[in-house]
């Protein structure tokens, strides 16, 4: 086995990879930009090297620096995690060139699947069902509008090099086209450095079902079943689960087979995910293939008992898969909630700050993959996902009940998170029923429910406010400590001062 590997990522996924490496007895090397000096992932590793860039994000995207660190620290392999360089063919290529094993697929597979146009062509040839749309990227807005009309509204504009919902716009009519197209182009250019956009038919309210596949270098391919990632806000996944509530064993087997064919068509090695849209008639269409470990991989791990990150490293070392398709058994149900630092009461805008209090959930059936700890700073430099909370139960009901409990026990102070929103979704009768689609948050979920949940507390909150006010009047040291805590403009402080002056 490898002696030492480089973790070319940060946050919770870096921690995840370090844990897997440790389980295999492998030493790990972390890299960090100055702003991450105190981040937990750095301190989980055996060795840490600083990498440099004017923009913090840039450091984790700098292939030369990463290869340099891998070489000088004596690493035999590199794990790219997700995001950053994980789906850049040139990184996989640069590693191969410097004789460092890339823990992931070969450059060719990343390149083909990373280009949506090429991917569609290849999938079409391999007999994988695809959504009707353009075969080549469009840059001219007039051409694009003509094509949009031909396909028929509603249509979806997508960045050619995209992922994660960036550079993606839904358009329902000619009137909205120009704004949507320009906006998609801008976001695509910002996020991926490529403003070409392609157009496809928008399938209304499908389920987002993806199949986890894994392949070794000896030609063995296995699928590990599906994940249902239909709970999305602005095309960002929020809650994922396995298995899906709507898949029959027959469709699961069919989708698994198609996913394996997709992987074989590009000579895929290592763990990957084939994403599909499943429409109301249970017809499925290829969406894209993610040539990396997914954020939501833990739900598959929970129901199959397979450690995907560990398996990835073993495969990269040249070992055979430790299981066959027939040996895969799915047990129970697993749910994942993504804990984003976003404010549900302010349009889900990202929030920043210092975590000054943290209490993490635990107990039976609860797993937390987290990138934060007490006193961590949440900045604008990186993605606002702080952690992933995963529960397992013998059935969906038990998994949901544990999720409800774990979310309630998860206390983060200092930065706003979507935890209240997640609790509301977990308790929603339609989500609970399992009959929901990607339109759930947009069409079914009533965001006002959060205000109602908030109101339930108001009497208790008023009592606490009254108590604190009284304590502030009575106890000078308490008052001083609160005044020190609060900034100068505090209305409470004014109140206390006014009171003192007149009483």
């Amino acid at each position, binding site marked *: 086995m490898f002696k030492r590997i480089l973790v070319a990522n940060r946050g919770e996924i870096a921690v995840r990879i370090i844990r897997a490496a440790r389980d295999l007895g492998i030493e790990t090397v972390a890299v960090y930009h100055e702003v991450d000096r105190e981040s937990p992932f750095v301190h989980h590793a055996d060795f840490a090297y600083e990498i440099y860039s004017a923009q913090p994000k840039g450091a984790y995207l700098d292939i030369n620096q990463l290869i340099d660190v891998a070489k000088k620290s004596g690493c035999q392999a590199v794990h790219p995690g997700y995001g950053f360089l994980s789906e850049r063919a040139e990184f996989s290529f640069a590693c191969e060139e410097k004789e460092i094993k890339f823990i992931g697929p070969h450059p060719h597979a990343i390149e083909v699947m990373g280009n949506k146009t090429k991917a569609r062509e290849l999938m079409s040839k391999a007999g994988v069902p695809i959504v009707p749309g353009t075969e080549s990227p469009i840059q001219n807005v007039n051409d694009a509008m003509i094509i949009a009309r031909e396909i028929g509204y509603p249509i979806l504009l997508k960045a050619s090099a995209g992922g994660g919902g*960036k550079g993606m716009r839904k358009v329902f009519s000619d009137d909205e086209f120009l704004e949507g197209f320009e*906006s998609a182009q*801008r*976001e695509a250019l*910002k996020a991926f450095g490529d403003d070409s956009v392609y157009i496809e038919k928008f399938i209304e309210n499908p389920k987002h079902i993806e199949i986890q596949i894994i392949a070794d270098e000896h030609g063995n391919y296995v699928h590990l079943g599906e994940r249902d990632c239909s709970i999305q806000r*602005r095309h960002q996944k929020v809650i994922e689960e396995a298995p899906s509530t709507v898949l029959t064993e027959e469709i699961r087997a069919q989708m698994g087979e198609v996913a394996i064919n997709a992987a074989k068509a590009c000579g895929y090695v290592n763990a990957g995910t084939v994403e599909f849209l499943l429409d109301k008639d249970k017809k499925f269409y290829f969406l894209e293939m993610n040539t990396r470990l997914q954020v939501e991989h833990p739900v598959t791990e929970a129901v199959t008992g397979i450690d995907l990150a560990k398996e990835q490293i073993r495969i990269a070392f040249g070992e055979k898969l430790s299981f066959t398709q027939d040996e895969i058994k799915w047990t129970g149900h697993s749910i994942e909630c993504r804990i984003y630092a976003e404010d*549900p*009461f*302010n*349009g889900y*805008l*990202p*929030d*920043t700050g210092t975590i*000054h*209090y943290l*209490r993490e959930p635990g107990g039976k059936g609860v797993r937390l993959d987290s990138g934060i700890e007490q006193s961590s700073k949440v900045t*604008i430099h990186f*993605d*606002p996902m702080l952690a992933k909370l995963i529960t397992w139960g013998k059935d969906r009901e038990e998994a949901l009940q544990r999720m409800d409990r774990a979310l309630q026990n998860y*206390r*983060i*102070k*200092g930065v*706003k*998170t979507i*935890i*209240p929103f997640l609790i509301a979704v977990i308790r929603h009768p339609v989500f609970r029923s399992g009959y929901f689609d990607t339109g759930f948050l947009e069409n079914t979920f009533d965001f006002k429910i959060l205000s109602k*949940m*908030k109101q339930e*507390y*108001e*009497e*208790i*909150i*008023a*009592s*606490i*406010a*009254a*108590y604190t*006010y*009284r*304590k502030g*009047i*009575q106890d000078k040291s308490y008052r001083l*400590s*609160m005044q020190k*805590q*609060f*900034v100068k*403009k*505090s*209305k*409470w402080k*004014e*109140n206390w001062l*006014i*009171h003192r*002056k007149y009483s």
Partner: protein
Amino acid sequence: MEEIIINVNGNDFTAQIPHDESDFIMLNGKPIDIRQLKQYGTNVFSFSVNNKLLLVELDIHETGTSYINADGFYHEIDITNDTKRLIQKYLRDSGLGVESTHAKIKAPMPGMIIKILVEEGAHVEKGDKLILIEAMKMENAISSPIKGKVIHVKAREGEAVEKDAFLIEIEAE
């Protein structure tokens, strides 16, 4: 015993608070048993309110509004006592402190101004998009809270702004 009015998210509660060491206060005429059981760090507390436990964070926003954060719900708090009520009455009677007919749009979070969608002098409806701001790789639109006329655009495209930075001013019409 002192009577104060506590406004939580716009709803008034009347509280009678004894100036002694007892664990009771009266809220809207009902007795409440309230105890602070534990303190974590400087401003996180575990309270028992009629034996119901709640972990709260006492917090103040940069705009000067007080908050109590309970399980991720941020409650806006304002406390009024007799003295303050007198001052407010004076302000109201003298015509000061009247609600402004201006809307000053501020940056809700730190980010980059990508596009300004309105010009000075433009008429906007409530809900019209004014500015696109990018934070954490996502574009977010800021909409007008009122119907009115754009009287000042301070933000510049391509500019990085801090949270609460003044962006656009709108006069109601």
